[in-house]
């Protein structure tokens, strides 16, 4: 069996060596296809991963807020489900905003392996300075917990998250906002809450520019102080959750929501529009790239089918010698495979080179030198190789089948 295979490989390789130019054209077609596939997909996948990482990291993986996706059933309706009388115009019971029983929610979040929850209270205040009003969404946090749940501490230009604990009335503002107010580190800004409470806040840290999500209009305070400023003692209205596996966020969020009825929004839900955009982008990329690989396989088809046409006489001889139809089909499929494999190896080298060039390009963005995010995982190499090999074998198989059906009688009789 092995001897037979090595004999067929021998015959196929002789055919390819004799037809050097065709071999070169077909293999370089595959090589260019594979090389550009690698470069393009490294860029696309790399930038996508980078983008998704930012989507995930910009906020906690799951945010449980004190909103409800549907209003709670009114007591009358709960008491008489499916009743014959429908109630209209009943007075809706007012409930105090905030997550009720939030300690229990937090405990069950923390019970999930690898998950951490951070409670917070957000509310609106106004910063009033020199006749200017700046609205500020204030978030009261536990610095120790929040640092583990969000990436806020990496985004501070100056100061430290822990300084909130150390400084009475400490606040963290965005750089842009501080600039607009004409205030810097250590300066005092007066804040007024909706209920009229006014406090003097001291800027203890600044959030770097360019983090628009953290916003030019939001700030961080200590949870206790925020509760006191907003006049909502002991209340929190948000729990941020960080998971060990960000991709589990959707299911975990659904579980939490089913259990506590509060809206638990995963990062996937939050960025569904971006994710669907990425999906479209991937479909486009793989369409274009498979077209490249398909065109490369045309080269293989041409090469193998020319080889079959050229070798009709040899096919007849080998058949008369006792080679089976399967043998001859195998010879030509092997030729296609060899072309594909050589092309793939060259294409890998080309792709590697292109990625090295792309990776070495530098882009100054926002005052920092950035490199293109590239995905250099072996997975891309494997996908390119598998697709080209499959296309190559298929492209060779069609003419190879024709080769196996050559009728030796016609050729042996009419031979020149």
């Amino acid at each position, binding site marked *: *069996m092995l*001897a*037979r295979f090595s*004999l067929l490989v021998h*015959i196929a390789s*002789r*055919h390819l*060596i*004799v037809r050097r130019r065709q071999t070169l054209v077909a293999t370089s077609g595959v090589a260019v296809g594979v090389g550009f596939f690698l470069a393009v997909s490294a860029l696309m996948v790399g930038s996508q991963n980078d983008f998704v990482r930012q989507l995930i990291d910009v906020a906690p993986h799951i945010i449980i807020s004190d909103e409800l996706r549907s209003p709670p059933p009114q007591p009358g309706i709960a008491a008489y489900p499916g009743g014959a009388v429908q109630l209209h115009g009943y007075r809706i019971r007012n409930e105090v905003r905030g997550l009720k029983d939030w300690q229990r929610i937090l405990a069950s979040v923390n019970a999930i392996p690898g998950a951490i929850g951070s409670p917070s209270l957000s509310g609106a205040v106004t910063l009033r300075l020199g006749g200017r009003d700046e609205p500020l969404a204030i978030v009261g946090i536990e610095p120790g917990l929040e640092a583990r749940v969000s990436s806020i501490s990496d985004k501070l230009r100056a100061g430290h998250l822990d300084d909130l604990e150390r400084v009475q009335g400490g606040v963290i503002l965005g750089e842009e906002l501080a600039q607009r107010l004409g205030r810097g580190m250590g300066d005092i800004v007066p804040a007024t809450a909706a209920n009229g409470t006014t406090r003097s806040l001291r800027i203890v840290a600044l959030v770097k520019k360019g983090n628009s999500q953290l916003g030019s209009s939001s700030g961080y305070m200590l949870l206790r102080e925020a509760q006191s400023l907003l006049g909502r003692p002991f209340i929190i209205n948000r729990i941020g959750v960080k998971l060990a596996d960000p991709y589990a966020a959707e299911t975990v969020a659904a579980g939490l929501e089913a259990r506590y009825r509060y809206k638990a929004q995963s990062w996937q839900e939050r960025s569904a529009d971006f994710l669907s955009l990425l999906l479209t982008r991937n479909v486009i990329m793989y369409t274009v790239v498979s077209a490249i690989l398909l065109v490369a396989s045309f080269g293989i088809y041409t090469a193998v089918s020319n080889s079959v046409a050229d070798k009709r*006489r*040899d096919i*007849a*001889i*080998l*058949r*008369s*010698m*006792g*080679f*089976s*139809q*399967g*043998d001859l089909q195998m010879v030509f499929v092997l030729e296609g495979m060899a072309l594909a494999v050589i092309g793939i190896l060259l294409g890998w080298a080309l792709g590697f080179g292109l990625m090295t060039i792309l990776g070495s390009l530098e882009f100054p963005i926002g005052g920092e030198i950035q490199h293109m995010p590239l995905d250099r995982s072996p997975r891309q190499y494997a996908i390119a190789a598998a697709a080209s090999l499959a296309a190559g074998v298929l492209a060779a198989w069609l003419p190879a089948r024709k080769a196996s059906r050559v009728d*030796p*009688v016609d050729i*042996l*009789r009419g*031979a*020149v």
Partner: protein
Amino acid sequence: MTEPVLVARHLRRELDGDPPPVLVADADLAVMPGRFTAIVGPSGCGKSSLLYLLGLIDRPTGGQLLFDGRDLAQMSGDERAAIRLEHFGFVFQFHFLLPEFTALENVMLPLRRLGRLSAREVEARATSLLADVGLAEKGWKLPEKLSGGERQRVAIARALANNPRLVLGDEPTGNLDSVNSARVVELFRALAHEQGRAVVCVTHDMGIADLADIRVSMLDGRVIEVREQNPPS
């Protein structure tokens, strides 16, 4: 009484058409080991067609072809290929060597395909086969570097590679000068008389036909005469 290697009974080959053109009509023939059989007849009489049927290259549309008591006409393509490989050797009017392979490699092809010998044994056997046809020194040459007679002798060596019981020739001397032609005929006679193989040759050369042990004459697809010219001693 020796058993025939191959027996054709009412062997028939028609082409598609209405009425179907008949290439071989109800041929009956027994191919005997140790005998040199020549098939003769005017061109277009169906002698080559009969040879291709006997050699399993073509499939009959009717009749039986018995080899070791089995009907080859009913076998699958792969089974027929396997029998061809192991028991049949072909020599054509044109040498039909693979141009990319040296003379030695050409002779090695059927040996390697059969796969019964080690690589070293394959090479040794191919070398000795080439020596038998007087080409011991030329095994490394590509076919294009050999003369017509040499190529035909390589082709004969290749036909004998797997020690076939039946050797078939389709005008094997058709393209050779008289010296080379005589040499090939001598080789064929030796294959039959000294090695005990069955040899069947299609030829229009009456000189060769006269040297054969059995002469089969054909006309219009029919075997019209089977004549013993050289009864076994």
